[in-house]
């Protein structure tokens, strides 16, 4: 009885091991097939594309390149945009984005789309980008926009890549016209605006936010204090310098976090009795796109409200 049981176990384990080996074998063969097959087809499609200047299968993996690409691409050129473009907090083009395939920034799904150009931002997952580059895809990384000039350059670069240079020139012209057409009363002295976001961060000189605030004829407190770039800004400095307007980012989530508690600090609440608090929608200035003119427009109307009561 005992012997038969043990031999049964032995047979059983031998069988299981063989079965597992067989399954592994199949899995490995299957993996090899799926990995190599698209690689070959990729090489084929790359060959056909070298002659043509206009890319036909563009995949964008970054919120900012998504929006630039949607603004510039010709019909049928753009294949996929990232999932972030569907979120109303950060994206201006939610409706437009629904016309495209959505990717989640994973190398695997982008790989399967067989793109001829991949558009990525500076902060797009580096490991996915490195993997796609190693697989032989053409990845174009767009730098962060630190100024209006960077926006113009990124539009030009995108126009060039998509072979849509005329559309790019048109966009830049519209952008410059919009900026020139803001009617700001320059006779009143520029009010002092403080950029103050969750977690006590601010934008000093050499940032897009600084250009936006300055375009609306405000003085930016942070660059006034010689702070450079996106950096921490102690609450104390904000309170001590008593700005005319505090520009904050909008709330990203109703879920509580300490980051937003810095906006509820009693000292800041007290300061708001004198200074206005203006939550500026992130979607207009989180990316270097022509939509930053909307942010400028919002600030210009805020400036009018601020300076009106002082005029007799």
């Amino acid at each position: 009885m005992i012997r038969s049981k043990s031999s049964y176990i032995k047979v059983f384990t031998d069988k299981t091991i063989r079965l597992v080996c067989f399954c592994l074998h199949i899995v490995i063969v299957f993996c090899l097939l799926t990995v190599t097959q698209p690689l070959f087809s990729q090489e084929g499609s790359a060959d056909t594309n070298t002659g043509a200047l206009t890319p036909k299968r563009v995949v964008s993996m970054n919120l900012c390149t998504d929006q630039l690409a949607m603004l510039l691409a010709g019909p049928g050129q753009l294949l996929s945009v990232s999932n972030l473009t569907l979120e109303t907090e950060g994206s201006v083009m939610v409706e437009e984005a629904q016309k495209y395939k959505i990717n989640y920034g994973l190398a695997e799904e982008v790989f399967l789309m067989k793109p001829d150009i991949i558009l990525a931002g500076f902060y797009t997952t580096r490991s996915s980008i490195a993997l796609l580059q190693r697989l032989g895809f053409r990845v174009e990384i767009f730098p962060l926009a630190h100024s209006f000039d960077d926006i113009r350059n990124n539009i030009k670069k995108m126009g060039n890549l998509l072979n849509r240079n005329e559309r790019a020139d048109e966009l830049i012209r519209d952008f410059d016209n919009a900026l020139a057409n803001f009617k700001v009363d320059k006779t009143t002295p520029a009010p002092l605006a403080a950029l103050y976001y969750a977690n006590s961060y601010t934008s000093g000189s050499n940032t897009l936010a600084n250009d936006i605030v300055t375009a609306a004829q405000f003085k930016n407190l942070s660059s006034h204090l010689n702070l450079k770039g996106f950096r921490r800004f102690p609450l104390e400095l904000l309170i001590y310098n008593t700005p005319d307007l505090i520009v904050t980012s909008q709330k990203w989530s109703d879920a509580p976090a300490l980051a937003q508690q810095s906006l509820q600090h009693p000292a800041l609440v007290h300061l708001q009795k004198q200074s206005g608090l203006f939550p500026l929608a992130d979607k207009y200035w989180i990316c270097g796109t022509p939509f930053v003119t909307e942010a400028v427009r919002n600030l210009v109307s805020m400036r009018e409200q601020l300076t009106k009561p002082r005029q007799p």
Partner: protein
Amino acid sequence: MRRHIDRFWWVVIGLTVTVVIFFFLSLLTGPAQISTVEALTALWTSENEAAQLVMLEIRLPRALLGVLVGASLGLAGAVLQGYLRNPLAEPGLLGISSTASLGAVIAIYTGLSAFFPPALPLLALLGAFVAVILVRLLAGANSHIMTLILAGIAVSSFANAMTALALNLSPNPFAALEIVFWLLGSLTDRSLSHVWLTLPFIITGWLLLSSLGRALDALSLGEDAASSLGISLTRVQFLAISGTALCVGAATAVCGVIGFIGLVVPHILRPLVGHKPSQLLLPSALGGASLLLAADVAVRVIAPEKDIKLGVLTALIGAPFFLWLVFKTRRQVL
């Protein structure tokens, strides 16, 4: 005996002066260029409204919390070392701070503390309470030094993992980054409301812990000797556990985990005041307050705009000290 008492009071006076000095240094340190005279007058008069706002709403709460939290950690460390008769006992190492931090995280990120502010210290206190009892149960009554530390490691790594999980599950994109605050602690931009929220708990905790002096002296002779001297062991246990939970829980709820103060301070002061546990309580509280205030001033002087967490600095002092202590006790025990 007489000489010891004299020396005790000299130490207390010296430490009090240190606390006062660092308290004022803390008030005078900050990124806004407010002169000493301007800063001190702004505390009483409202000539310069901006300066007054900075002093009363930002710097004063920070300095006050430095005193409250530092003293709590120092006192709790001294009591735990006496009560557990273990030189390595400390709120941070025993996992009490970590579980308190977990309680605070649950209170804040579920939104509970937004509706009912006292939920923050209460849940932190509950977390601390659970940890003290758990460590006591895991390590047993007459525990070996290492058993106690191992129990503490188990409790704190579990609590830290749960804190990380709770923060990762929050839908708020900022929450996951805030794990640094909860694991390393900071006094940056706390407000007077935090002071009022924690003050009653901390004061009650101080009262409970400081009533333990005579019992701790008796306990240093062993539990049997102590009960033969008329000390009620259950009463001592209740006072030590709830006092520690109140102090450490409330402190951690507003400042995160600040490690090593409860370990380092009693050890530095023990040679100065003698080895009677009761003599160590008041000096440890004062020493804890000075050390935390000094660390908080240093954080602002070293890198004013970087917001270095306090736990980084206390670990820089505390970890080498702890290693030396482990080395020393190993030689004694083995």
